[in-house]
């Protein structure tokens, strides 16, 4: 059903030298929904996201965006032509630039996408209405913003890019849980209004299952579970894996190898 699928990943392998970070991953992120990819540190979540964005090379497999193959497209082409926009976990804004300059980079992509016929009504005014603090800080260098403000700036810039598909890496990292909920409450409305689909990566299983409608669980580079979020919320196996019950059960904990952070 290519029409209903925003992102379709098939048999994805990502390797860094001899290290195989992602192996044979299949993901279908339905259009108009929030899909979560959960897993522990080093499980291959970020590598999967970066491969979809075109920021790390795909060793094997394919990535379709909106039903059209994008496996070989360079990252900037995926952004401008396909509307694939990644919000990285760290270093998600240009720290030496002002808030205005950072937002300007988003507007620039939005303009280019509009010229290609991708309409979206999300404007700078909308961004400032969503995050009033950014308007107060327009001429401040981003390096002087707080962690929460940086996150808001990255989200605002990404929405200005008129995305079809938003890839969000660890939205809860470094943010107060209340703020995460507030941001997503607003974000949901925007996503629906502008027909944006989301694939988010989360280490915090509770947060991820609260935000998403369905979730994939990735362990050591492989997908081990896929179910609606409502079903996963009560899943004993998931609780065991992510609430530290592993050791008690005598099972080896998921490998904690650090993912190369590109």
């Amino acid at each position: 059903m290519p029409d209903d699928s925003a992102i379709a990943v098939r048999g994805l392998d990502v390797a860094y030298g001899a290290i195989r970070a992602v192996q044979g991953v299949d993901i279908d992120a339905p259009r108009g929904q929030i899909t979560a990819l959960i897993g522990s540190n080093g499980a291959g979540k970020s590598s999967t996201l970066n491969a979809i964005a075109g920021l790390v090379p795909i060793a094997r497999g394919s990535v379709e965006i909106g039903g059209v193959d994008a496996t070989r497209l360079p990252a900037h082409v995926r952004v401008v032509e396909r509307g694939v926009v990644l919000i990285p976990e760290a270093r998600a804004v240009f720290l030496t630039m002002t808030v205005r300059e950072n937002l300007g980079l988003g507007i620039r992509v939005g303009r280019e996408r509009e010229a290609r016929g991708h309409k979206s009504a999300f404007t700078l005014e909308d961004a400032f209405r969503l995050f009033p603090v950014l308007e107060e800080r327009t001429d401040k260098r981003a390096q002087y913003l707080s962690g929460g403000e940086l996150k808001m700036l990255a989200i605002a810039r990404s929405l200005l890019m008129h995305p079809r598909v938003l890839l969000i890496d660890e939205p809860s990292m470094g943010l107060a849980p209340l703020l995460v909920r507030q941001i997503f409450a607003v974000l949901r409305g925007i996503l629906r209004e502008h027909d944006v689909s989301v694939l988010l990566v989360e280490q915090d299983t509770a947060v991820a299952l609260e935000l998403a409608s369905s979730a994939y669980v990735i362990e050591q580079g492989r997908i081990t579970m896929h179910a609606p979020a409502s079903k996963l919320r009560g899943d004993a196996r998931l609780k065991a894996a992510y609430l530290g019950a592993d050791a008690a059960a005598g099972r080896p904990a998921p490998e904690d190898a650090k993912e190369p952070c590109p």
Partner: protein
Amino acid sequence: MSLTEFLQYVIDGLGSGTLYVLVAIGFTLVFGVMGLMNVAHADFYMLAAFGLFFLGGVEGLGWGVLAATISVLIGSLIIGFAMFHLILKRLDKEIMIAFFVATLGVSFFLENLVAKLADFRVRSVPALFTTHTYVIEGLYITNSVAVSLAAALIITFGLLAFLNYTEHGQLLRAVAENAMLAKGVGIDTGRMTLLAVLIGSFIAVIGGLLYANTTSTADPFVANTVSLKMFAVAIVAGIGSVGGALVVGLFLGIAESLSLWVGVRGGFDGSQWQNVIGLVLMVVVLMTRPNGLFGKFERIG
């Protein structure tokens, strides 16, 4: 000893300082954007001088100085373009040593090719303009020093304005700060790197033309000395710092010139110390401020 004598050395130093500035700003710009150093950058000085010799001079094609100058300026863009597409973009950026060795190879190749064409001799080049010396308050100021200084100031501030106030300048700064994120916000980083290489090449041959004009010579191996100053200025200023390269380049030129003056006053040959100054400066700054005086790594402008 007089103030006039001291100032004369300062003015002479400004003359050579401007030439260090013009080679260093392109180098530091490309270094900032790519995160890698193009060791062959200083060879644009040699290429500019021999462009004048082979195209403009009576021993060459005899096109005249103006046609040769224009050809050199256009040629720098062609060579920069070729260097980017044939070598720079093909190398794995993760392997720094590969980049270093490859550009060093380009440098050796170009130098020896030109040396062969020039029969391994230092040649004299036609002057860009007739040199006049003005005497102001007892100071001798040549128009070539004035032109070099004006060129360095205009180019440095022009480049800073470009980087800070134009869209392409902002995109270059974005790539320099965080290339991965730059790709993520739809910037074609390859195209931006090419732009940086073209700007750097163009500025470098302007420096090369003025250098050839000042010395009246074309030396196939001039890059040996020029690249030393280029590294020193770019590193002391801080990689990516264009404004810093202006300040440090002029300072180095003046410091070198004053070493001659100290030699004259102290009764020793100061010229033997000239080349040491840049290196000492580099070591001291690297020990105390590893990111350079104006540097912040990951930042250009």
